């Protein structure tokens, strides 16, 4: 690979990468810095170090209520989306049937629908069946939005499995259920855990649909949206920083679980 290399152009291209990364990460890093800053509206030069905003959210009972709602929703959504996603992934892996394309489209399309439209549709429908305005409605909506992610993760793991493995188990006398329990589930276990954590992380950050359907039982991201509508409030940065740290911990745990399977991947 020699080609026509030009150090100047290569340098400029790398500078461009750096600028894009700065643009992407400046708001994220900024939010951390601002959360520890005394100024209500930070600018250059920055104000002094302060944990005031963390103290304010710590003492705000509404933030705590939102946090527990988020946790409850996240745990339920992770379990539901992973169960549904596992079923979908296994169906795609194992079976060919008429209408499979439609099945897969239905399973995977939700993330491409704009959240305002999902929110409106969910609100209109769930309020019709008297399910809106509570935590259950958020769980239902997030279940729809998160199961495609779980399905994709588990499907990826299944595609690494030797298809003969299942057949071998059947030949050895295991029926489908036994094979599922002793072959498929152990093999996909890392992906199942990863799916649990990733769907929880997605649910933790989702605010739009939750805002439409949650009514008074706000989750934390909906609370943040409320702060954003009100006056300037650096509490958003404090909440955001904590949420970021917890989301990243979930991802790292998921990554470690994905990397840990018994078979060594090159």
């Amino acid at each position, binding site marked *: *690979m020699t*080609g*026509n290399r030009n150090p100047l152009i*290569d340098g400029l*291209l790398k500078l*461009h*990468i750096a600028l*894009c*990364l700065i*643009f*992407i990460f*400046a*708001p*994220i890093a900024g*939010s951390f810095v601002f959360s520890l800053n005394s100024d209500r*509206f*930070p*600018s*250059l030069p920055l104000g002094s170090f302060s944990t005031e905003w963390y103290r304010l959210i710590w003492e705000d009972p509404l933030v705590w209520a939102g946090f527990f709602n988020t946790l409850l929703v996240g745990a339920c959504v992770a379990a539901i989306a992973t*169960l*549904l*996603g596992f*079923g979908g992934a296994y169906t795609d892996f194992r*079976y060919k049937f008429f209408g499979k394309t439609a*099945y897969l489209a*239905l*399973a995977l*399309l*939700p993330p*491409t*629908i*704009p959240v*305002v*439209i999902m929110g*409106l549709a969910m609100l*209109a*429908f*769930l309020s*019709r069946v008297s399910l809106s305005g509570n935590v259950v409605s958020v769980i239902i909506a997030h*279940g*729809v939005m998160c*199961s495609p992610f779980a399905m994709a993760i588990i499907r990826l793991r299944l595609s690494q499995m030797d298809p003969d493995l299942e057949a071998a188990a059947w030949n050895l006398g295991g029926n489908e259920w036994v094979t*599922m329990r002793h072959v498929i589930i152990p093999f996909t276990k890392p992906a199942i855990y990863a799916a649990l954590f990733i769907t929880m*992380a997605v649910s933790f*950050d989702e*605010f*739009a649909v939750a805002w*439409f359907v949650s009514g008074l039982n706000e989750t934390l*991201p909906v609370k*943040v*949206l409320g702060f*954003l509508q009100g006056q300037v409030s650096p509490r*958003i*940065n404090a*909440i*955001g920083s904590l949420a*970021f740290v917890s*989301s*990243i911990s*979930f991802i790292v745990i998921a990554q470690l679980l994905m990397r840990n399977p018994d078979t060594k991947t090159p």
Partner: protein
Amino acid sequence: MNTRPSLFSLTFSLPLLIWQLAFFLFPLAFLVALSFWTVRNFQMQPDFDTVNWIKIYSRGVFWDAYFRTLLMASASAVLISLLAFPASYAISFKLRDSVKRWMIFILIIPFFTSYLVRVYSLQVFLSDAGILNAFLGYLGLGPYPMLNNTFGTLAGYATLCLPLVILLQVFSLNFVNRDLVEAAHNMRCGRLQTVLEVIIPSAKAGLVIAALFAFILSFGDFVSPLYLGGGNPPTLSIMITDITKSGQQWPRAAVVALTMIATLLTVAFAAIKFAYREAGK
């Protein structure tokens, strides 16, 4: 293949199907019905009346918002693709494999940060007395208005879409046959010419899909136009949230939502058709 599905197969395939039918497809279909309902005395009533469609479509405000949203989302798709391409090209062609993997990992991180928090942080950066203008002030420039205008909205769209667009572009560029590039160099095809005539055509499908995602995300986003663009004049998604949150005129919001879905489907089909045209060549 068994012709009759077994209990075993249904146990795994049906829950997802039922869930997505009941809570995804059905609510979307319900929007269609809802758009024909009427509102009397602040109560929605099942009906078959085209009044909502006529009301919304006869308003200049709606069409202004429609074309503005369309224009902004298209501009966002084009500008973000142009901004992303040099970076994706450099990541795919100029970096070592280990660095490339790190880049991909780094670009995934933003998906797990709250978009709202990033937008709020961006407000602090872009406002008249904010970080960026203060910095420019040291250089003797500005202040430039960057918030509550189109620039703010586009900056927000870029925050939302740029990582995804770079990732999708990198994935499609990684599939470009390196021998083709080498062959072009051997035939004394210049650097820029190689990019324009060899690399871009062979990665076209992926590049178009990446732009399509930027379009879809920007078209439906209400946070950036509201909190960075000022929200006035509104985009379609702001209209939906306003109508929905301010009362019982949900049927009208449904009309706006369905118009958005129709537009997105049209754009998506056109883009995919364009992306895979002459693909067999």
